[in-house]
């Protein structure tokens, strides 16, 4: 080989990317204040100030846009910026007088400022039809449609508490959305359909059998060809088999759709972290704008905003008023699908007569 192959160097050391004001005041920040939606200041013990301007993105970014962000950072921030865990960009400045011009330029380029304080920040999401094989719905499209409606909540801070929305396009939940105030989750509802003619040509049967987490796949001879069969009752629609073998079709245009879950959180503030619980089991896919999903999310948020007390996250509010009231206020139908029937289902049954009548 002409050139020595370089491996195992790991990521670049973050220190070279920190702005001087951070290097100087690293670990010595005194307090922070949100100055207005999307703009905050951190004040160091030394008195130095660092201003942060937060901007929402669609997560899927063209390098053209990233270069534009780099140009903006050069113009206003001495080239310093970072991304957040929720796919927002944060411009980092020391010169307060440049903030308004920075905001104007970012907004002019089509990206909104906000996502701070008691608001709805960006929707953490996954690949969907843009780039994943087992997607039961599209991530970017649903997120875009929902955020178009929720935009005012991104740009102001008038909710009772933070409200985190997350989206995953199948049960694998690459974004681990299961602890969000509102989780939008793509669901397959039928076991995969097997194309027995193609299967032996495309796939190794032992690997396919081993791929199923629940052991639902068995070798079988179908119409004289060596193939597999799937025990429908054991399938929980994860799509793992399709990952291994494209002849086992998990995706189904008629029966794939979206479910909505509510009341989860990850922070430890006040009450312990919680899982999101099922609100709506199934909404058919309706691209390009998924109006039924958007309406359901907006409705839940509006009811929450009207009824929750200050500092109460979605899950804390529901715990206070009780689930029957939640379903009543939101006009969501409670069905048999809402009652858990997996391993530890019994833990979710109501074993007290303390009810609201």
């Amino acid at each position: 080989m002409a050139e020595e192959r370089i491996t195992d160097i790991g990521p670049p050391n973050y220190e070279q990317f920190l702005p001087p004001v951070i290097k100087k005041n690293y670990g010595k920040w005194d307090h922070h204040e949100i100055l207005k939606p999307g703009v905050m200041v951190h004040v160091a013990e030394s008195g130095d100030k660092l201003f942060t301007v937060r901007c929402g993105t669609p997560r899927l970014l063209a390098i053209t846009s990233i270069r534009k962000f780099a140009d903006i950072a050069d113009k206003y921030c001495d080239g310093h910026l970072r991304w957040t865990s929720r796919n927002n960009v944060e411009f980092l400045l020391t010169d307060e007088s440049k903030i308004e011009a920075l905001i104007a330029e970012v907004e002019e380029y089509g990206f909104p400022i906000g996502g701070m304080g008691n608001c709805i920040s960006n929707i953490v999401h996954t690949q969907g039809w843009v780039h994943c094989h087992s997607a039961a719905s599209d991530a970017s499209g649903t997120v875009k449609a929902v955020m178009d409606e929720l935009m005012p909540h991104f740009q102001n801070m008038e909710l009772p508490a933070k409200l985190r929305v997350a989206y995953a396009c199948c049960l694998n939940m690459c974004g681990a959305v299961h602890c969000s105030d509102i989780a939008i989750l793509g669901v397959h509802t039928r076991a995969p359909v097997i194309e027995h003619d193609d299967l032996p040509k495309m796939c190794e049967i032992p690997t396919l059998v081993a791929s199923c987490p629940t052991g639902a796949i068995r070798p079988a001879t179908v119409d004289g060809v060596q193939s597999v069969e799937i025990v429908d009752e054991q399938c929980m629609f994860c799509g793992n088999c399709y990952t291994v073998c494209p002849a086992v079709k998990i995706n189904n245009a008629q029966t794939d759709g979206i479910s909505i879950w509510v009341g989860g959180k990850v922070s430890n503030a006040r009450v312990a972290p919680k899982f999101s619980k099922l609100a709506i089991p199934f909404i058919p896919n309706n691209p390009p704008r998924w109006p039924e999903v958007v309406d359901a999310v907006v409705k839940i948020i509006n009811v929450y905003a009207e009824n929750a007390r200050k500092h109460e996250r979605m899950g804390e509010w529901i715990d206070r008023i009780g689930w029957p009231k939640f379903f009543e206020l939101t006009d969501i139908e409670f069905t048999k699908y809402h009652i858990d029937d997996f391993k530890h289902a019994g833990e979710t049954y109501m074993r007290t007569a303390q009810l609201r009548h």
Partner: protein
Amino acid sequence: MADVTIDQVADAMFELVSSMKGKRDLKPMDVSKQMMEKFGDDVDKKMCKKALRQLIDSGRLTYKYAGGSYVTLPEA
């Protein structure tokens, strides 16, 4: 105690993976466990890791992802 070299372990690993071709895919840990059984105290996990790395780096074996990671022969 007979000294076992990394090359010997690597060869034994290669043989094992070849013999399982089409039957069952093996995880890196499965391969290592079988080597430790085969060679007994002469071989530990560190040696197995080294042998495996040699096989992968030289292209004799390759990783494959099928819901979990496996080692397998490269595609022809």
